């Protein structure tokens, strides 16, 4: 078991996928000699040749549209968008084609494309380098959307994403690229579509994904000091969503906070909160709360710490979960009315 960074795990996943399947091709901006601005494709071109890993002209719509055609010719393209915000020029190709081709053709044309997106912030990047875009993709039917939080998951989920018959938007939390874990590669964790309980706990459930997971873990530790035994669920796959694991977890604790780095409004945490209260309403002692980024453009480096969810905010949310179990008067009234 060697300490492996998420970047190394992703690199290994790409190499292993290329080695195992002749149809896997990796392309995008600067993925060749440079190995990508985050070095995720480091050495891949050297090892497998320009046919398997190559640079394209600088045009994201072009990259994704080209991938559609390559997939139609039988390839499994794995494309890299340089940063979340630089995937936006490809939005039409992603939404109108990548997501819809299978449906359009009644299954005759599958597009097993993986769109890798260095995702979210916390790395002190200037404008446009720290956006979160998961909600745009998760809201688009036909896409699968995955966000690993650990090196093992990064490896395993990327392998699964590449093997998946459907297009997958693969969100790589930038600030976790250099986070390490003791893991022997290759590794297989949970199948794509499954959430995982990262930490057991009886008092409240934190639900998170990607960069929110280490924060949730840290917050759970801090909460323990305050006497709360907090469970952490790592969603891993936003689409498909693992309702079963999530709802069962929340039913156990009766209290829930969803953590998300992106701006809150109409984000994925809203979906999770809405689903959880739909499914667990009568198990809930308090509303499902959310801790997210503010509804503002991602701020400049010097202010990002004020914007990003942190342990204190998660603890504050946990504290607001009505631990005295006193529902408000209105609820009691309604309940009495029924009795």
């Amino acid at each position, binding site marked *: 078991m060697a300490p492996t960074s998420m970047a190394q795990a992703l690199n290994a996943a790409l190499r292993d996928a290329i080695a195992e399947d002749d149809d896997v091709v990796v392309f995008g901006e600067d993925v060749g000699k440079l190995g990508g601005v985050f070095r995720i494709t480091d050495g891949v071109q050297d090892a497998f040749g320009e*046919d398997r890993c190559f640079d*394209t*002209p600088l*045009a994201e*719509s*072009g990259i*994704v*549209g*080209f*991938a*559609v*055609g*390559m*997939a*139609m*010719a*039988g*390839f499994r393209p794995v494309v890299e968008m340089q940063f979340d915000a630089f995937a936006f*020029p490809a939005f*039409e*190709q992603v939404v*109108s*084609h990548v997501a*819809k*081709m*299978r*449906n*359009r*053709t*009644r*299954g*005759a*044309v*599958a597009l097993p494309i993986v769109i890798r997106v260095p995702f979210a912030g916390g790395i002190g990047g200037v404008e446009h380098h720290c956006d979160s875009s998961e909600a745009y993709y998760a809201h688009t*039917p*036909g896409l*699968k959307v995955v966000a690993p939080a650990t090196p093992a998951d990064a490896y395993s989920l990327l392998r699964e994403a590449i093997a*998946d*018959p*459907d297009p997958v938007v693969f969100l790589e939390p930038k600030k976790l690229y250099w986070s390490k874990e003791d893991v022997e590669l290759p590794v297989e964790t949970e199948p794509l*579509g499954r959430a995982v309980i990262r930490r057991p706990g009886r008092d409240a459930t934190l639900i998170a994904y990607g960069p929110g997971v280490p924060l949730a873990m840290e917050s759970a530790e801090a909460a323990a000091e305050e006497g709360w035994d907090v469970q952490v669920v790592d969603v891993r796959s936003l*689409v*498909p*969503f*693992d*309702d*079963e694991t999530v709802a069962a977890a929340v039913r156990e604790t009766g209290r829930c906070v969803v953590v998300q780095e992106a701006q809150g409004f109409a984000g994925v945490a809203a979906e999770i909160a809405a689903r959880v209260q739909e499914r667990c309403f009568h198990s809930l002692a308090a509303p499902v709360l959310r801790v997210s980024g503010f509804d503002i453009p991602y701020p400049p480096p010097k202010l990002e710490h004020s914007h990003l969810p942190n342990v204190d905010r998660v603890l504050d949310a946990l504290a607001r979960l009505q631990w005295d179990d006193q529902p408000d008067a209105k609820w009691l009234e309604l309940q009495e009315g029924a009795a």
Partner: protein
Amino acid sequence: MEWLPSSSPVGMLDQPDPNYPVPEPSRLLATYRAMVVGRRFDAQATTLTKQGRLAVYPSSRGQEACQVGAALSIGAQDWLFPTYRDSVSLVTRGLDPVEVLTLLRGDWHCGYDVPSTRTAPQCTPLATQTLHAVGLAHGEARKGRDTVALALIGDGATSEGDFHEALNFAAVFKAPVVFLVQNNGYAISVPLAKQSVAPSLAHKGIGYGVRSEQVDGNDAAAVLSVLDTAVAHARSGGGPFLVEAHTYRMEAHTNADDAGRYRDAAEVEQWQQRDPIDRLERHLREGGHLDDAAVERIAAEAEEFAAQVRSRMQVEPTADPEDLFRHVYAEPTPQLQEQLAQLRAEQEAQ
């Protein structure tokens, strides 16, 4: 500067062009036949729309030289990437006309089998399909097949960024792809003069290092000949080729459009004089390859074709609501399974 397109559209029927050979009479005859059938099919589709059998129909009347030339310039092993306006091209390519009309009838988004016909779905988001064609062409070449991809696009759609990216990717990867711009003078209501002030749309190839040519798009012989050159160029490893065909959309944009709002009858009348079928017919008659009897026989064939389409289209297809969930993913997600169950429960309750 051998990479400059001709300074005016290549023509052939009015006067031979030194750079392009005239196609064989037998080929021109087949082209003529396909154009006549195509026009009749197009008229039938318009009628079906008036009868409410189609949700919408974008006619290509007047563009038959391009529609048919495109289909006949490539082989069955090649790929075609059409738009919503290219039904006649698909019918000429041999696709089932009712399957071709599926999109416009509204039963499903694409009605024909894409992989076996090697024909991409008729594309609506403008210019997006040009990138698919480039990727496919490159992919096929990488697989060692000598496929050519032919992408159809309108004049208006050349303004979209995707067209630019497609030309550039094609050039940089030397992909065996041919772009055929059917410049029919309008993008819905917007005339070419408001779309571009370039010397020609073919001149756009220069800025990418893409060979290009412009052709009289109502001259079927010239269209075929220029496309032959383009396809051969692409197939032999020469890289992409851009062809602009100057033609005219005789009908409104679709049945839902009112062309009277933005163009004169006089302009339409003028183009009527340059009707591609009339011109080819005249040429074939002059060469002794076509006579009244043949014209009548072909007209009858076209009539028969249309009658078949008409009668098959009278049957309303049954739409299965469960299809909503069948092909969103290879396997429905748990969320879709739940939603499908809801739909089933509703239908059982009825």
